[in-house]
């Protein structure tokens, strides 16, 4: 300890102490720098959703005033919300970084995947092939994703550095032990790691961070009037990509989105929260998880997420 001043207090005499958000931020920045230093060709997956918006902010904190040591990539199902795509392109331009768009439509056109049909058709599952193909094509050995452990119980067991074999698959029983903040990013040719810097964040943390950092998010996260219909207890937006079933009647109401994904499997919640503070208040008071409330893809079976992750999904 210093003999001159007390090093454990600030200039104003307050004890040195970080808020939990700043602890989470520091951890995420550390993780991003480790990946940049230890892996040859990382990529950051940016969808325009709230979690990847936070990832971009953290990348700025980790690497500015230098450039990002990796490009950004979006796996575009072609059925995304136009407001989000507009936001995505604008944000990338502001940052002056490079964006790669991997298109599910291209995978369909090339015969790599087959489009589902019928009113419950979704391109969500098809993304996995497009993602794995893009990782292989560009030779990426690490991909940052915005997934959080509080989202779902298979995710709760996943390491921050999630090792994938050369088929992109996750083996939950053969995960590398992850000790202290010493991450092992070593991979053989063809293998890769998915890296989740927001692993320890909750949905509320993400929103509080967006508020504290004053980050812009796509406007569909705030309440707006939209034509929707009810299916399985969820509200879906009407669009060219959605086929209505019998007895499904569109109506217009005030909604916002808690998650932003493929339009065919992402539901809206009835809400009048039109600004960040009100949204944070609603999230803090909610009694339903975000995936339970708004994601049809996790409702299929008790282990839906685990099965998709084993197949190479995020």
């Amino acid at each position: 300890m210093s003999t001159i001043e007390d090093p454990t207090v600030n200039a104003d005499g307050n004890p040195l102490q970080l808020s939990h958000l700043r602890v989470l931020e520091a951890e995420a920045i550390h993780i991003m720098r480790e990946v940049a230093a230890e892996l040859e060709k990382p990529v950051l997956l940016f969808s325009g959703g709230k979690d990847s918006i936070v990832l971009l902010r953290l990348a700025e904190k980790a690497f500015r005033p230098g450039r990002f040591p990796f490009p950004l990539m979006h796996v575009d199902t072609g059925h995304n919300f136009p407001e989000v795509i507009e936001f995505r392109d604008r944000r990338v331009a502001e940052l002056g970084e490079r964006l790669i768009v991997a298109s599910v439509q291209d995978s369909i056109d090339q015969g790599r995947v087959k489009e589902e049909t019928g009113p419950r058709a979704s391109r969500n599952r098809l993304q996995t092939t497009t993602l794995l193909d893009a990782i292989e094509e560009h030779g990426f050995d690490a991909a940052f994703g915005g997934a959080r452990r509080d989202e779902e119980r298979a995710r709760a067991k996943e390491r921050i550095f999630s090792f994938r074999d050369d088929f992109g698959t996750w083996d939950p029983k053969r995960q590398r032990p992850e000790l202290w903040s010493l991450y092992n990013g070593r991979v053989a040719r063809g293998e890769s790691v998915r890296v989740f810097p927001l692993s320890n964040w909750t949905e509320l943390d993400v929103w509080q961070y967006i508020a504290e950092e004053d980050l812009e998010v796509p406007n569909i996260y705030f309440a707006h009037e939209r034509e929707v219909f009810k299916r399985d207890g969820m509200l879906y937006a009407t669009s060219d990509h959605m086929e209505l079933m019998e007895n499904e009647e569109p109506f217009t109401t005030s909604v916002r989105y808690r998650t932003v994904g493929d339009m065919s499997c992402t539901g809206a919640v009835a809400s009048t929260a039109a600004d960040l503070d009100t949204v944070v208040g609603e999230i803090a008071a909610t009694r339903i998880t975000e995936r339970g409330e708004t994601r049809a893809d996790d409702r299929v079976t008790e282990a839906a997420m685990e099965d998709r992750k084993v197949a190479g999904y995020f």
Partner: protein
Amino acid sequence: MTAPVTTIESALLRIATAGSVDDGKSTLIGRLLYDSKAILADQLEQVQEASERRSGEGGLDLSLLTDGLRAEREQGITIDVAYRYFQTARRKFVLADTPGHVQYTRNMVTGASTADVAIILIDARHGVVEQTRRHTFIASLLGIPHLAVCVNKMDLVDYAEDVFDGIVRDFCALAKQLGVKDVEFFPISAKLGDNVVDASAAMNWYSGTPLLEHLETLSLADDEAGQDTRFPVQWVIRDHDADYRGYAGTVAGGVLRAGDAVVVLPSGVQTTIAAVETIDGELDAAFAPMSVTVRLADNVDASRGDMIARAPGATNEVAPLVTRELSADVSWMAEAPLRPGARLALKHTTSSVRAIVEGLDDVVDIATLERVVSPDELALNDIGRVRLRVSKPLAVDPYERNRTTGSFILIYEATNESVGAGMIR
């Protein structure tokens, strides 16, 4: 802009729990989440459905909340570390739930490596058993600063004070043997909720707080990572247009301020900190675990893997030891045993080097906690004292002085698997 400073109440607490299904560990976690309202309606519905499917009757099996993988739910076991998050008005909690079987020692080490507090579960009917000794040993080995011992299933021993007192006495003897200092005891019933979140009406003889209140108010002020200044250089940020060069990293100990006289190790070059900053601007001070960028006054040669510490003589801080010889307790995690002569990759802070095992001094008998000297090998899940020689000098501290600069991992170079966790002694 100054450092983001708030009061301690809003900080993050990392908890590790150890125990087997039989101890009621999953039920305790389920209870903490349920009673602190961290379980949301749809999760509860899933658990209700699953409880009914499995038992064929009503009632809520809270343990089903934490078992995330298909095999775990089918076999009723916990395979891997699961992370849970909950928040109260006072604090945010990250809970690493680890399996307690002997074959899962490596998972417990994983979950416990960053913990501020370990919850040790004891079945009131069985008292301190071998598993308790093992869990407590691992907690002490990993330098977890606080232990919360929960004597569970008090309802099955008629909430008897003397049963609780007997277990407290036995555990204190164990804690003394292991040199564990901060221990608190809680008589609980996870199943019925006694003394977990709410105080028990059935144990008026207990005057302490419920477990959650203890976790909310536990002070970490004295056990933030070491007092000596340590800054491993992680990444060099350059902006050629602006002639900018900053050393980015995560503070591992002490406090960094502009004007501090520092030394770059292992080279020993001395300089002064010109600024401590983030993209938001210069900071008054940086301390663990902040991720910051340090600019140095002189154009010195520093890169990833180097350690910045206070210059000798500038303070009464203890300098790191710059060495190629390490003596460490190693938790071995590979199927194949570790033997003298083995060559591995070693990662210490941001430094990756090669290492050779010079010798095995002892191995801990997990049943008696005694050290058996000169073993031939360390087998899977063994913990023992290992002497290593590394290819380049490292700036290290004893683990008890600094959990970040005193730890390393061992990696098989052929397969890239992480196979060992080392704590420098």
